[in-house]
């Protein structure tokens, strides 16, 4: 006899994105989302008490089934790669600005960081950590950026309110007239930025089991 809790487990197992409580309610024809939540928390307890390799995680407004950190080393071995590529420091800082001030335009991001953020933003767009939310009604009508659900999932956040509180508000300095501060002004320019190579890890040493071979010649899949 299949129980609802088993179905929930199956839903989370098969889905590639977090499954919302409402979606579970819909699929299982439950009377409320709270009932779905209740099932999920029972599933979580069950997985925890049985000491299974999987756990329920709440992120991006839904629930996911993910492995426990303790088994990560074997999964890495299975995948034959050291780590997943991580975001660079400029990318993380830019992401922080967007997460707190969204929707926010590039001139504002540039002003806070003190450097051009074009390449970093492109990289974050490519990784679907952010997306274009519209245009700002200011000179030049720059794009506005906001974080995505993928961002929440990648960082294990239920929603942006999960971010740590900052004392005081994040104030964007007013664009400074010409000779004043650094950071404003140089708007245009397709020059790739420091953060261009965002892939920090993984690149330097792709699992070498072939012995002496120089970096980069290791056999890959």
């Amino acid at each position: 006899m299949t129980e609802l809790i088993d179905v929930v487990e199956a839903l989370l197992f098969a889905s590639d994105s977090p499954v919302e409580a409402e979606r579970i309610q819909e699929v299982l024809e439950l009377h409320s989302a709270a009932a779905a939540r209740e099932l999920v928390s029972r599933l979580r307890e069950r997985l925890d008490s049985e000491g299974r390799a999987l756990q329920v995680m709440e992120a991006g407004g839904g629930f996911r089934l993910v492995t426990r950190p303790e088994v990560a080393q074997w999964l890495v071995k299975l995948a034959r790669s050291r780590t997943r590529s991580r975001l660079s420091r400029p990318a993380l800082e830019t992401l922080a600005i967007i997460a707190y001030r969204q929707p926010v335009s590039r001139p504002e991001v540039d002003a806070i960081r003190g450097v051009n953020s074009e390449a970093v933003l492109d990289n974050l767009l490519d990784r679907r950590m952010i997306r274009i939310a519209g245009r700002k009604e200011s000179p030049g009508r720059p794009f506005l950026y906001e974080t995505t659900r993928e961002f929440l999932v990648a960082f294990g956040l239920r929603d942006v309110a999960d971010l740590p509180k900052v004392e005081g508000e994040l104030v964007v300095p007013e664009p400074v007239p010409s000779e004043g501060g650094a950071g404003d002004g140089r708007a245009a320019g397709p020059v790739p930025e420091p953060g261009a190579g965002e892939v920090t890890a993984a690149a330097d040493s792709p699992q070498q089991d072939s012995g002496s071979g120089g970096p980069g010649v290791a056999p890959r899949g």
Partner: protein
Amino acid sequence: MTDTATTAPSEQSGLTVRVEAFVGPLDLLLHLCRTNEMDLSRMSVRAITDQYLAHLESVRFQDLETAGAFMVMAATLIYLKSKLLLPAGPDDDEEALDEEALLLKQELEQRLKEYARIKALGGWLGEREAEQALLFGRTVAELPPPEDIPLEDLSIHLLQRALQRLIDEQKRQAPRDVEPNPLSVLERMNEILELLRHTWSLLFSSVAGAERIRAEWVVTLLALLELVRLGQARARQADLFGEIVIEQHAVSVKEPNPQDQQDRGAPAND
């Protein structure tokens, strides 16, 4: 292991600065304030400016634009410091600035505090990301795709990328026009000189080609003008839109009357 003192002799100066990768001028400034245990709202312009400039020499810029950002900050600091060099009133405190400079400094401090916060948050996100990297979940759906694709998830960016891919694909498939070697003014100049070696004068149209290809004519004209400028050839045009005659420049034969030469529009060679 490499940071032991044994590597010191390679350094010429006594001061060895361990350079982190500073991602921007604010990053460097923040680092300096931290190492000096300085309150961000009481930045000492004197101390910071010198150190900033010292660090600037060792920073390796990834590109021109970043370098520019560092330089603008340097300029701002130097400007502030220059204000301090002016004699201050007797009742001023140690770092007396006029109103404008004070505002500039306060704004800088404000931005620095803001950046410090962002840097901390970025660090927090980084830790978070590292934790999440240890958790593996499904990233590719095991289920068949839904019949209607949720359009709200499609950002302009992704659509634009998809379109760009299509366009690129098309471009690859379209037959390419093979361009002849681009014309070079320098080569054309040499050609003219070569021709002039065997003949006293020649017609512009014979060099530029009777097909009247625009690029040919432009390059030939530029080459000719350059030769005239260099004094290696002379050009003469009898009437408006008429044929231009290119002549050897008689370097060896000094003409008695330079007036004659100037009439033909050839600038005096030096």
